[in-house]
């Protein structure tokens, strides 16, 4: 039953901090709340016994991506500008759209027969050893290709970030 409690706790924290991402006025607060959300998600991964993903998630998102966000915020000095005014109508519309998409998603996913074969707490597939085996055997080509993707992304980021001479 512990896992149940953990699940509800993590979910509650994740949802609240996700809301706070949107509600906070300053971007820097949003970034921090987002980081919190990512940590709770990492907890979820551990609950699913997907340790590898949990670690990668923390490294990539909390470690790399969030740092990037923070750097951007600080470099561009966006924090002082604060929130741009937004019409109430637009907020109303987006709330309705969000609600509708929630309902529709639930409806769609509910309509499928969800069969549970394995026990997520006992399953071994999420362990580093097992995933590593699969990743380096069956998925070796996409894995290597993703490194090329990273390289090009890096080059692209440098190219874009470089100041124009003219």
């Amino acid at each position, binding site marked *: *039953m512990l896992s*149940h409690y953990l*699940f509800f706790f993590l979910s509650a924290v*994740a*949802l609240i901090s*996700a*809301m706070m*991402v*949107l509600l906070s006025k300053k*971007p820097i607060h*949003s970034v921090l709340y*987002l980081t919190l959300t*990512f940590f709770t*998600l990492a907890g*979820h*991964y551990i609950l*699913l016994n*997907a340790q590898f*993903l949990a670690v*990668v*998630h923390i490294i*990539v*998102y909390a470690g790399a*991506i969030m740092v*990037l*966000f923070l750097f*951007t915020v600080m470099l*561009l000095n966006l924090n002082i500008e604060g*929130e*741009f005014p937004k019409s109430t109508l*637009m907020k109303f519309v*987006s*709330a309705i*759209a*969000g609600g509708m998409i*929630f309902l529709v*998603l639930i409806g769609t996913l509910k309509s499928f027969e*969800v069969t*549970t*074969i*394995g*026990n*997520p707490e*006992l*399953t071994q*597939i*999420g362990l580093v050893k*097992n*995933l590593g085996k*699969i990743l380096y055997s069956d*998925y070796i080509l*996409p894995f290597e290709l*993703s490194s090329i*993707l*990273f390289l090009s*992304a890096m080059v*692209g*980021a440098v190219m*874009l*970030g470089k100041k124009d001479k003219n």
Partner: protein
Amino acid sequence: MGSAITQFQIIPLQYYILFCSALFSIGVIGVLAKRNALVIFMSVELMLNSANLLLAAFSAYRNDPAGQIFVFFIMVVAAAEVAIGLALLVVVYRSTHSIDIYKLDRLKW
């Protein structure tokens, strides 16, 4: 017998579906309601993560490692996307001195 107890004890998959849908919807609302490109970007990350978690959940419940591998690759792509996206954001900021998406309306009739 033992499996029945575990069946009872484990968290139902529906919970994950509900949670991920909620997280996704929050992301959608963020994308729609915000004008700050940075926050929109973060909302997009939220949506991506909700999808990731659901994939991992399905993978675990179906005992199929392909889902988790897929999550891994999504993370890879997301990292690259964020790097490029933020670089673009910087460029946009440089040219318009703002990251308000409403000011990016020059590409129209």
